[in-house]
């Protein structure tokens, strides 16, 4: 088996067994990046030498027995909105083109503690605002399944890199679906943890009350292992929550007997691609065959999630992004007269269209005279959505549905109609509004040969339930093909 076809867990095992070294693993990833990334553009920054040095240092520690975890020596890619000390972190924006953070995000420190080797920083929608990875200052990432299509977003670089085998796993961030939707489009497995599970310290904020870092990998096992590595109660993040346990891999059991799964009827209405609907229902049938109790129910309020999300996320973003002003770091315009001119020009030139659109939207909804009508109403809607989920989780362990209404669209199609693009987040945003954990994993290909994603949502802190359901489904489904091999063999039949 080729190194880059291995899962992170398998790579880790081989490294522990001494059959390969951390350096060889890093080299394999770097070679694959060299080979494919000109075409795909998954990475913004790759520092080959630094990565190899790091791999060599980790290898020494593995040999001395200092590092013995399941992921020690495994290369990983990190989304470019997560700070890495000494390694350029751009948020895919001209604004931070030259920004080298003086500190690492807590999640990055946890990866390093686990002995993982960061091979590079992945492309994304600028400041994580977008659903296609087309708003990046560094150009769009292409979907490895079809180069004319988008990988989804905003963690499109991380998902496409994993799908293309440029790395076995990556970190993404999810504010309204930014891990789950690109995972769906790229045919990989991505998990958004319960809000407060992974420290946000060092994650460059988009919507602070919604942002969460999570793992992206080729299977459920890797996601569970990675989550174990990065989850922590961090005192530097006041919204970080202490959890009773940080063991997730014990949930990896092929057993859903008695697990109660609810399917929101409201998710299968207008706008959902019939092929996606069919694949998702088939996945539900599989779980039912293996002993889960599956039934449909009315979740309600589904149509209110998108407006509430865009109001809250934009409001927080308008404030979070105020710090990028040309004064302290980042882009500053060349010529200006006085402070206000410097502010205006630096921000007008440094931010892209989508970011400016959301800053303006967010500033508007917070303005006096509009605050009550928009922002406050959105907060109330958020609370109601949370209640709707509370009621649902009184009856069900897991909520099952699609991750996106369609498979990956063509490059350029989405940005023509931003409102339509926003509506594409209908299945993912409510998990962020309610703080819930969600996992997306591939459940088939459509007629065009593009992957379809299955989403499982759990109640807060119930990652283990969705992991168990996902793992069981995955065991039945079998290994999901990678883009190239799938094309050869005509995809997965379910």
């Amino acid at each position, binding site marked *: 088996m080729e190194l880059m076809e291995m899962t992170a867990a398998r790579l880790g095992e081989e490294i522990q067994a001494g059959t390969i070294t951390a350096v060889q693993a890093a080299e394999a990833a770097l070679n694959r990046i060299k080979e494919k990334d000109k075409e795909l553009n998954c990475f913004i920054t790759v520092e080959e030498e630094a990565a190899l040095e790091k791999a060599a240092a980790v290898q020494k520690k593995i040999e001395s027995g200092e590092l013995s975890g399941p992921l020690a020596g495994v290369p990983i890619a990190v989304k470019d909105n997560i700070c890495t000390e000494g390694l350029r972190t751009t948020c895919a924006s001209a604004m931070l083109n030259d920004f080298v953070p003086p500190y690492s995000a807590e999640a990055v420190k946890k990866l390093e503690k686990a002995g993982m080797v960061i091979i590079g920083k992945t492309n994304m929608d600028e400041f994580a605002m977008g659903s296609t990875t087309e708003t990046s200052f560094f150009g769009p990432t292409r979907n490895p399944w079809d180069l004319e299509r988008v990988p989804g977003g905003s963690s499109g670089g991380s998902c496409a890199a994993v799908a293309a085998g440029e790395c076995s796993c990556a970190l993404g961030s999810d504010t309204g679906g930014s891990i789950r939707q690109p995972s769906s489009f790229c045919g990989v497995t991505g998990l958004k943890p319960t809000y407060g599970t992974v420290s946000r310290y060092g994650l460059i904020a988009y919507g602070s009350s919604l942002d969460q870092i999570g793992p992206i990998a080729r299977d459920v096992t890797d996601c569970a292992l990675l989550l174990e590595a990065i989850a922590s109660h961090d005192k530097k993040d006041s919204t970080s929550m202490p959890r009773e346990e940080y063991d997730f891999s014990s949930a990896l059991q092929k057993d859903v007997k008695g697990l109660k799964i609810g399917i929101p009827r409201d998710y299968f209405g207008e706008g959902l691609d019939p092929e996606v609907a069919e694949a998702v229902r088939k996945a539900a049938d599989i779980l039912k065959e293996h002993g889960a109790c599956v039934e449909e129910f009315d979740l309600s309020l589904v149509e209110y999630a998108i407006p509430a999300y865009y109001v809250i996320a934009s409001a927080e973003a308008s404030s979070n992004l105020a710090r990028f*002003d040309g004064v*302290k770091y980042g882009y500053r315009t060349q010529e200006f007269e006085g402070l206000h001119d410097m502010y205006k020009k630096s921000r007008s030139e440094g931010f892209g269209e989508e970011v400016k659109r959301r800053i303006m939207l967010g500033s508007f909804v917070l303005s006096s005279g509009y605050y009550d009508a928009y922002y406050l109403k959105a907060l109330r809607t958020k609370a109601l959505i949370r209640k709707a989920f509370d009621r649902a989780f009184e009856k069900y362990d897991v909520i099952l549905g699609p991750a996106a209404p369609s498979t990956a669209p063509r490059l350029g199609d989405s940005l023509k109609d931003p409102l339509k693009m926003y509506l594409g987040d209908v299945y993912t945003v409510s998990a962020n509004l309610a703080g819930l954990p969600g996992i997306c994993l591939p459940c088939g290909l459509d007629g065009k040969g593009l992957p379809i994603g299955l989403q499982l949502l759990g109640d807060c802190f119930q990652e283990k339930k969705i992991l168990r359901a996902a793992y069981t489904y995955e065991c039945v489904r079998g290994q999901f093909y990678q883009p190239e091999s799938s094309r050869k063999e005509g995809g997965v039949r379910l």
Partner: protein
Amino acid sequence: MSRQYETVIGLEVHVELATQTKIFCACSTAFGGEPNTHTCPVCTGMPGALPVLNKKVVEYAMAVGLATNCKITRHCKFDRKNYFYPDNPQNYQISQLYAPICRNGYVEIETESGSKKIGIHEIHMEEDAGKLIHDEWEDCSLVDYNRSGVPLIEIVSEPDMRSAEEVIAYLDKLRLIIQYLGASDCRLQEGSMRADVNLSVREAGAREFGTRTEMKNLNSFKAIARAIEGERARQIELLEEGKQVVQETRRWDDNKEASHAMRSKEDARDYRYFPEPDLPPVDISEEWIEEVRSRQPELRTEKLLRYQKEFGIPQYDAELLTESRKMAELFEAAAAICGNPKKVSNWLMVDTMRLLKENGQEPEELNISPEYLAKLVELTDSGAINSSVARKVFRHIFYENMDPEKYIEEKGLKTVNDESALRETIKRILEENPKSVSDYRNGKEKALGFLVGQTMKEMKGKANPEMVNRILKELLQ
């Protein structure tokens, strides 16, 4: 001026809290470090940095709230106040708008017309900004973030004050309460206490408030008093001319004794306040409130009464002694050691006050060990040193915090109580000054003073003055 006007004043007082570390990070709050040395990713607004609330700030804010009869908000929240300015690294300030920590309190002030309650609308916690330094030569501005994130409380009064006198009394009351709590040193000049004055005038007897202005940049009590008089006169003049007062923020220039408009209500900023998503609400339990309440030290008003009752100190003296927490603590400690509160009070009221005034110092700057002051009292009481020596010794205690016993021994200043030796010296002096002796005997009382002086000079000031007097009179008879 034919009509009578009433001035209506409310204050917004910012107080820098005396915590060791900043409100949202572990950086030092120490004043005077090299620029940008007390900084970290949090207080310089680096991307991805997050605030963590300093618990001590909450406790100080609660303590001030309790001491000013406020209701503590059990579920208090932080909000973001958005505005662009380079001294504010995130371009928003974390403050409290919707659920401030304290509400609905009051303090009682004393003025010549009696006592009066001044309402406190709210007290909220917030972070201070950095400092801009404009370099005129290089035509650029520099920013120092050492002060960025230093904790502040803002105390917002009700519009209950009617004169500069009441304003000063209110500020002084707040200052004393906060100093006694140890929550801040409250120095106006150094900016650890800053007051903005909201002022309007209305015709006497009117029910509606007039249009108010807000006055900023007031750095001393005197400046505040002058600014109030100036603004009152300006507003009345406008009204008398049939013009209207414009709601605006004005900046006081104490050198020119005049103010100018900074911005009007129309260009008032829209701060786009919203709940701070990076900080969960602070839940304050009844137990926590009680714990803070139980740690509350004796405040000035209580001390004032106790000094009069317990030590028999006159009210005026007690007021002076309790004017600063430092002075009161020194007094109590020294009095407890030597058991002579009146004498200790004397040293503080007379010599200490005089030296402070001479040096332009505040009582807070005193550096006197109560043990030494107590020892000085004991040494004079026992007659070991006389009062003129004691004065001299006290100066050394005041300036160098010197052990009086050690100083006296080193300099050989102990009073000579050996009567026979003194008698010999006096005999010699009388022989050397026959003119004075005869003058005295002829009824010139003044001559005695000269002889006493000569004796003390001969004894290098160490003689017991009573003994000198007694022996002189005896030998002159």
